């Protein structure tokens, strides 16, 4: 079974979302620390997900419906 590359990106983002604020930003008591990091992480997640669904072929799903599948 092939693992889609975008799932690896999401997995890395989740690991980073747990590790970086606790290991690298724990002393940073400003908005440019964990807050900014997590906002950027959320934005990258949003872009990744949108990019994946934009590749979907919606027309094919309509054809499948017409074929009764």
């Amino acid at each position, binding site marked *: *079974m*092939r693992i*889609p590359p*975008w*799932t690896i990106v*999401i997995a890395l*983002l*989740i690991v980073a*979302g*747990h590790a970086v*604020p*606790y290991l690298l*930003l*724990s*002393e*940073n*008591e*400003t*908005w440019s*620390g*964990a*807050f900014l990091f*997590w*906002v950027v*992480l*959320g*934005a990258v*997640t*949003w872009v*990744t*997900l*949108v990019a*994946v*669904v*934009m*590749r*979907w*072929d*919606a*027309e*094919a*799903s*309509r*054809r*499948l*419906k017409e074929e009764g*599948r």
Partner: protein
Amino acid sequence: MSPLLIWIAIAFYALAGFAVVAVARRQLATGAEDFYLASRTLGGLVSAASYAATTYSAFMMLGLAGLTYRGGVGALGFELVYFAGLSLMLVFGPRLWLVGRRYRFITPSEMLGARYDSPALAAVTALLSCVFLVPYSSVQLLGIGLLFSGTTGGAIPFEAGIVVGAGLAAIWTLGAGLRSVAWTDALQAVIILVTALAALVHIVDFLGGWGTFLARVEEEHGAWLAQPGPGFFSFATFVGLTLPWFFFAISNPQVSQRLFTTDDLGAMRTMIIGAISFGFLFTLISILWGFAALVAVPDLENPDLATPSLIAGAGVPTIVAVPLVIGILAAAITTVDSIALTLASMIGRDVYPRAEPGSNDRRELIVGKIVIVLVIAAAALFASMRLDLISLLSVASSAALLVIVPAFVGAFFWRRGTAAGALTSVLGGTATVIMFQFGGLGVSGLPAPVITFVVTIVLFVGASLATRPPADRGAGFIDAIREDLSRMRVD
């Protein structure tokens, strides 16, 4: 805040909802598939707004804001890990859409029962979902009660808020099933986002503008901007919160069932983009609102009262405060009505036919409507008991629903999974949740959801390997849709 103004606003809000329900009823056809899934014809925009309103509940402006107030920026990290978990929709959405149409599934538990050739599994997951989701619904109603009484200084009693929330949720669910739920959700999603954004802009302005607000947080509450912050978000607590919420999109049937409902993959794409856009924006608003409460009304004993206290005591003008209260009411109701509808479908389809062999679509639908009333009444009763801390109760419910995840994933990705494996993991996982999440047992400081998740995976794999696989080894779910997924260019 004047209770009369709140009541007038509720009246307008309810009238708008009734009007939407009346229109939805005109399109209502007969049969369970139409009542619970709107005949699988929902368009993208309605689906997006409804999914967003269902998944982003009153927890956001009450619980998450309170969590920020209590523990700082870790609340943002926790919520954004949940946000990343919405990626599961990309994996399972098209698969559920395909098998849902192919086999006419109405509920996620019905799908699991068919995949593992086990009606008992369907019934067990349906019943467990009831047990776990009624408290989650009650947390929404509890939030409404606290909000109304908190913002009016008790002039609107706590119980009145619960009755209003429960009553509107029941009417909007019974009105036309998913059509009335989804359409009122769509209306309410707009109310939720606009009122929350307007309130945030106002409160930041009240605190001296964005520059002053951000500077005051750094100067007065700098520890809240780092991890683990003031102490609440230890790493174990953080993981204990993020793990169950990451899987929310497939563990919670009120949202996974929505993946059966879209008209086509284009509508599902719009639903996903809309839901994640709403989610990202609403998360930031709720977190900043929590920080604003920290600056404006510091030193509260109960963090769950951060939002009511901010509305009532920080100079928020009536024109902003009243719509915000209605927005939070809407956020709670959209979650309660969706949960009630989904649980009704699960009991009606997956439990009742086992108790009453020979039942038909019409009778299952009648049972389902009775279940809607019972679920909402039970949630209201539970809420009236005023259990502590909204956020932690919500998370406890999600932790409990983690037990469904291995069987759900195995349905599409592991041929060797068996009914015995699925049943053992669900039941064994439930026992683990009761012991560790609710019973207070611990293992080397590991969070209860982590222990539960490991146990369910081990039980699912172990019991599956020890038993005979289904005759088709999942071919109807894995091989049969492979070509269709490929045609739709889905990974």
